[in-house]
């Protein structure tokens, strides 16, 4: 029954991108946005999260396991495609390609981001305003973070579109068109939040 498993894993891949990963992304950006209200407010929020009960269970269940599945299976999907944007330069085809490119960038960015922050906690550091300030004061890291954050947000926003199509929520061309605009607004709003948060650390 590998056949049905194929179907189920692809649907699961799409679902995990929205729940829990998309929800977590929104929550993560919101907490980071608190940095715009000063280091103390951010530190308080970061401290609250670091001291949540059964944190490991939450992290693995909501973030790492879904992320690993989505990421590894996503690489497989990305390399299955033979992009033909030069021959068929339609909007959706460009989005199709960007979804795969942004996914790969997001995977590299997240691997490094988790190493640079969460894994360092195990080596005795604490995630706080100063840690992010030190990283983002370096223009190289700042650029890397800007590209990474935009890639993640694009991947989520456009992924929300294909999630609705893949599950058969938006069937008519009109509803799919409307969803394109909705996901564009999601992209712009989250990018604003993400960028303000990044620049609040420097």
């Amino acid at each position: 029954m590998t056949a049905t498993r194929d179907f189920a894993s692809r649907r699961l891949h799409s679902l995990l991108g929205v729940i829990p990963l998309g929800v977590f992304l929104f929550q993560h950006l919101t907490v980071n946005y608190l940095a715009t209200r000063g280091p103390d407010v951010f530190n308080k929020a970061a401290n609250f999260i670091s001291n949540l009960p059964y944190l490991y269970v939450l992290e693995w269940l909501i973030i790492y396991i879904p992320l690993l599945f989505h990421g590894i299976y996503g690489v497989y999907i990305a390399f299955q495609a033979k992009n033909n944007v030069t021959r068929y330069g339609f909007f959706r085809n460009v989005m199709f390609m960007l979804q795969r490119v942004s996914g790969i960038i997001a995977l590299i960015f997240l691997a490094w981001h988790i190493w640079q922050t969460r894994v360092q906690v195990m080596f005795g550091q604490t995630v706080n305003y100063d840690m992010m300030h030190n990283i983002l004061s370096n223009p190289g890291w700042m650029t890397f973070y800007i590209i990474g954050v935009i890639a993640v947000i694009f991947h989520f926003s456009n992924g929300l579109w294909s999630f609705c199509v893949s599950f058969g929520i938006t069937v008519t061309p009109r509803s799919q068109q409307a969803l394109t605009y909705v996901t564009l607004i999601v992209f712009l709003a989250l990018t604003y939040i993400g960028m303000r948060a990044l620049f609040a650390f420097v």
Partner: protein
Amino acid sequence: MSEKMVTLIITRQDSPESSPYQEEFKVPYRPGMNVISALMEIRRNPVNAKGEKTTPVQWEMSCLEEVCGACSMVINGKAMQSCTALVDKLEQPIRLEPMSTFPVVRDLIVDRSRMFDAMKRIKAWIPIDGTYDLGPGPRMPERQRQWAYELSKCMTCGVCLEACPNVNDRSDFIGPFAISLVRLYNTHPTGAMHKEERLQALMGEGGIEDCGNSQNCVQACPKGIPLTTSIASMNRATTIQMFKDFFGSDKL
């Protein structure tokens, strides 16, 4: 003698195993000519642009009015039917290539049997045979018939597979047309009696899940079939089927 000429650059291949090469041809222009009449001109006088005698270019054709799908090829980078590709509307030199998604048989002839295999997999037919006369089937509302007619215009030409970035040698995706055919046969009142079987075939390997929503197919389809609407509609149907299969439900 200032005869107007049409220049064609054709990607040729002598056998399925040999490697492709390009050959240029110049044929006399005639008003209203299409790519097929240009190819017929080459067949009549198989001499390339350098004046060398060569083998006539091979291609497939049948209806010559864009209903059979046999003469599909890549013309100036886009897959379409060569019968409705008018020379006057094409940029010159006209570049002809076989559709790259399919194995080449010779020159512009490709083997589209993966489409036939896909149709067999999704049971693209209405079963009406019995051991006795089953009598007339249920009636189809006229409004529904008119709607289904649009989907039935599919001529298995292969253009949607050629345009799709997910149909390639790395995947065994059955292609957009097959998904739309499931929608067509599942709409038919008699065909609907086997709709679960078709949906389960779509949920199999190389099925609907290999669609990446690039939506090239709907743009490329020469018959204007709403392929992406069909795909989204079948996405919904397979989602419901998935829940039915897993949680269980009366097989009504």
